[in-house]
């Protein structure tokens, strides 16, 4: 039997793996790949930094690194997501070490939200303040799950954990976050 070359993985990530293979030779494939992943990668960095400008700075490099090494990408070694977020996590770790400590960021996006009530704005600031106070890996799981929108198996692939363990750690991270919010705000969560 001829080996199948089409991923049976459901959904767009199997599709992204095919695009990644094609992107080394096709400008259109590269554009599609970028369009599919750039917003999620930005959101991943934003959860970590809560800063539009920092997230913009950080999101560029993983794509440029990926572009330079697309020819070495092999789908059988792992999904494109795992590859891209592997680069992104290393970039973030370098950035944190260059800053000599945890990320200190402030610009919660209040501009462009003129109708937002003061109490809702307070809740938003509480939420992101509490996220920033979580342990690094707890925040990482929240960024991968709710920023990048990855599935448990995808997070497992990116982090090297078992998917079941991802579920346990994510549950605990959300519990810690909820306790912080309830302690500070009297129960926004």
């Amino acid at each position, binding site marked *: 039997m001829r080996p199948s*070359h089409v991923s*049976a993985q459901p959904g767009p990530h199997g599709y992204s793996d095919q695009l990644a293979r094609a992107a080394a030779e096709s400008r259109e494939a590269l554009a599609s790949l970028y369009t599919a992943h750039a917003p999620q990668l930005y959101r991943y960095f934003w959860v970590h930094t809560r800063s539009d400008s920092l997230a913009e700075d950080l999101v560029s490099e993983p794509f440029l690194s990926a572009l330079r090494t697309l020819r070495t990408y092999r789908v059988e070694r792992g999904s494109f997501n795992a590859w891209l977020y592997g680069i992104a996590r290393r970039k973030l770790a370098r950035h944190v070490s260059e800053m000599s400590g945890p990320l200190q960021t402030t610009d919660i996006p209040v501009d462009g939200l003129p109708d937002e009530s003061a109490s809702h704005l307070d809740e938003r600031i509480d939420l992101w303040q509490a996220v920033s106070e979580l342990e690094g890996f707890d925040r990482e799981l929240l960024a991968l799950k709710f920023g990048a929108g990855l*599935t448990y198996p995808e997070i497992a692939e990116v982090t090297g954990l078992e998917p079941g363990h991802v579920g346990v750690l994510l549950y605990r991270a959300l519990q810690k976050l909820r306790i912080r919010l309830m302690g500070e705000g009297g129960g926004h969560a």
Partner: protein
Amino acid sequence: MRDREQMLADELDGVSGVGPTPPEVRALAELGRRIREECANPHPAFIERLGQALQEEWARSRESARGIPTGWRLTRATALTIGVVALLLVAALYMTAVQAPAEAGLSRVITVFKGAKVEVAPPVTATPPSVRYQAYPSLEEAQAAAGFRIRAPSYLPNGLTLDGVTVSEAGGQRQVALQYSGPSVSPLASGPVVIQEFLLASSAEGEDLAFQVGAEGVVSVQIAGRPALWVQGQWTSTGRWERGGRNGLLMVQDGDVLIQVGGHLSQEECARVAESMLR
């Protein structure tokens, strides 16, 4: 009995009908959704600017690749060929002993479409053939290149709109992919959906197209009276099948085309989309 972590996963994925969920778990899921909703999205101008820069970088890298002297390219190609042949010899010696019994024990065809089959078997690890690929902004433009009638859905959930169509060919296998996404306000709210259509028996070898899945998370269903398959699971990088997850995939055949509807959709929604393509 589901544990609390599974309940949380089900809540986040919108899985219903699996039993009651305690208020504490629902609160955690709600908190997760708040993070998802309140996380900032990039400014469209930034995305466009960076996309432009990437395309320029891509063009530069192609130029420099073409600029490598012929002699050096030949030397490099020869060295690579020798290396690959040596690796293949070592791999053949190893895989004959180790992989053949494993495949004999695991492989089981669970569904046969005409010209394609789905089997419970380990994922194929052979190097994929190169892909020829072309993207089109509309179905009409892709139709001429496809070489077969593209099935377009007459039903789409949640206001999904067509982002683009790609026509690709790998190993003689022709396929079309229709990519859809939801309202741009929140790209993760509905998530991208991809419909893939494979022209069966189009390969030069005339052999069946084969898909490998795990033993769990695969269900036989009927779409408009035709046999179909619902798959919810994926292969990890270590070659292990993980059942479940947010993405699902529905497979059904229409004439000489195998249709796959996949993405962040429930089984019912995938079925409705697929059914609308068969009319």
